[in-house]
């Protein structure tokens, strides 16, 4: 009885999901109409905000938004809760910072190297971690990330607790200097939007459909002939690549790479951002990153209240916004954002 009813809901859900997405996939880059409008608004905000808000703050939001989107690719669409994403974010930022500072690489090459570092690390750690599901997966990623943290604490090239400091912002293609905040802002905005579209494209590709099938029911996906482990590993590596790119970009913006980026609290922060914004929604992580970063930034002036407020907001979200800000607000207006 319970089995048949569950199967029925699964079929309903699968049908409900497939219906709105697939027919429109070809037309608007996989966006539904509302999503396309929301995306246009987001691009407009990214372009206009630096004239209103402080660009350095916005760049931080964009870096974290990309990081959270990368994380959401795993938890939202494959159902894998990684508790060690700081490792990829942090290693990306270390490698970018180090190569710019010591080899004088140009910004785009260094960021790509940061992404490749995330990818390589993700491939190895993911290969180990995806063998288990659920809580065990989360714990394994946490343990592996702690090993990465320990490595960063000890390795001479990271500068231990002092970090890599005074990293120049380098230049784009070795031509355009990025020292001005607005110059690097456009690079960060481009990286974020490209990453965002890439993730969206992945999610709405046939590959993405298989990922969702794995999220909904892994044994069934296996029975249909998909090698789920391969799919999970590819998704994990993609997510880590983007996390590395986000970390590398952040290192360039601030000119530093420190232990904060590999610390497990960073892994927790990205979970918080994604949950706050809305798990499995494409705009949720962006909103979550904005909210968390804004709290850190603007509440810093109010002394000890940052952590208290963060905690309170998290509790309120869990109680009243079960699907996150975007998920719940979208639900009110029956929009799928």
């Amino acid at each position: 009885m319970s089995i048949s009813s569950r199967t029925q809901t699964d079929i309903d859900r699968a049908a409900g999901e497939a219906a709105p997405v697939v027919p429109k996939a070809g037309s608007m880059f996989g966006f539904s109409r509302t999503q396309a409008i929301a995306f246009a608004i987001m691009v407009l905000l990214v372009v206009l905000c630096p004239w209103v808000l402080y660009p350095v703050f916005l760049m931080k939001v964009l870096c974290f938004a990309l990081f959270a989107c990368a994380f959401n690719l795993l938890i939202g669409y494959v159902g894998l809760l990684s508790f060690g994403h700081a490792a990829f974010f942090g290693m990306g930022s270390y490698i970018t910072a180090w190569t710019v500072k010591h080899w004088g690489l140009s910004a785009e090459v260094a960021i790509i190297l940061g992404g490749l570092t995330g990818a390589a690390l993700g491939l190895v750690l993911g290969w180990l971690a995806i063998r288990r599901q659920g809580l065990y997966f989360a714990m394994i990623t946490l343990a592996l990330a702690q090993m990465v943290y320990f490595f960063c604490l000890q390795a001479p090239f990271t500068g231990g607790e002092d970090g890599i400091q005074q990293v120049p912002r380098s230049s784009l293609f070795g031509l355009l200097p990025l020292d001005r905040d607005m110059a690097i802002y456009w690079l960060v905005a481009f990286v974020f939007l490209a990453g965002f579209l890439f993730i969206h494209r992945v999610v709405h590709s046939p590959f993405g459909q298989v990922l969702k099938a794995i999220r909904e029911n892994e044994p069934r996906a296996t029975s249909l002939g998909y090698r789920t482990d391969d799919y999970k590993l590819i998704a994990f590596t993609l997510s880590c690549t983007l996390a590395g790119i986000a970390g590398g970009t952040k290192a360039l913006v601030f000119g530093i790479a420190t232990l904060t980026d590999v610390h497990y609290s960073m892994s927790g922060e990205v979970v918080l951002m994604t949950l706050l914004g809305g798990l499995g929604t494409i705009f949720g992580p962006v909103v979550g990153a904005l909210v968390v970063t804004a709290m850190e930034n603007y509440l810093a002036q109010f002394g000890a209240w940052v952590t208290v407020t963060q905690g309170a907001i998290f509790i309120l979200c869990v109680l009243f916004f079960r699907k996150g800000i975007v998920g719940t607000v979208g639900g009110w207006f029956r929009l799928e954002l």
Partner: protein
Amino acid sequence: MALIGTTVPARAQTPTLKIGVLTDLSGPYKDIAGPVAVACVRQALEDFGVAGKGMNVEVVSADHQNKADIGVSVVKQWIDRDGVDMITEVANSGVGLAVAGVAREKNKVYLNCGAATSDLTGVQCNPNTIHWVYDTYMLAKSTGSALVKAGGSSWYFITADYAFGKALLRDTSQFITAAGGKVLGSATYPFPGTTDFSSFLIEAQASGAKVLGLASAGADTINQIKQAQEFGLKMTVAGLLVFISDIHALGLDAAKGLVLTSSFYWDHDDRTRAFSNRLKPKAPSVRPTMVQAGTYSATLHYLKVAAAMGVAQAKADGAATVERMKAMPTDDDAFGPGSIRADGRCLHPSFLWQVKTPAESRGPWDYYKLLDTTPANQAFRPLGEGGCALVKA
């Protein structure tokens, strides 16, 4: 209403000097710096008498949450949007070094009081930065050589396994050997996350050394001191980085006999007592740590120089202000007379203290007795050894 009316024209004439206190208001360094450091900056404004001298000085503060990127974005925002001219405090070496880079980039004044890394005046020194209170070299030298002189001839270390711990171990061992003492061994414990130090304490006890050196900081050091007391360790315990707030938290029963280095103690002489008593209304329940007193001392010196060179000029050029600060000798109630070296190192004596027993103490905050003094010219790393580029120039 009338009062407000009279201050407006004055404000319009002289530009406002803005001081940003970037500190830890919610984390592990809250008690050694935090809100009391902000109070100390305000005390400096009061003692200098900014109002009487027709200067407008504003103080802003923020919590860096021990994250370097937050520190950098707050400071950049302060400078770009709010016109902050001087940044002070900044405990936490990672954040402290990152802010030094911003101060240089934006040509502002940066007076670090809370960070321990000697790189601030070494390889990462810059013309906008002054390191005010202490660094790892000074801690190692004072605790290492002075304690050997006082009879602590053989040592055993418990070392936190990261750069800070290892640097302390290396430097302190050097000074111990140079002073004629011996290092019998060292146990390295995994950092962070170790809470049980019993096996290390037993090893230390078995080594037969007279002194147990704690090359660690914060909660680890507090745990080690507590556990050493519980074990009834028959060694003199020397904490390399311990603040009076830690002793207050530990209580004299647990901390008695501990030897530590601090460049400031509120009950040291008449001047430090006078300063601490003036601060009392702003921070009624505590006595300042050396970091907090340092923010007072640094801010006061900055105000003196800003008044001497003119506020407008001090606002315009941070490096020039720091240059003037280096040229003028320092003198205040908290740190006494001192000077600032070319590499940005503020020089003052360092003191070796021993924590009193409950019987010796007359009440709360009566915690230290003086063991030895290292004079200002010997307390810090010699100018040529830091690798600071400003020195050769």
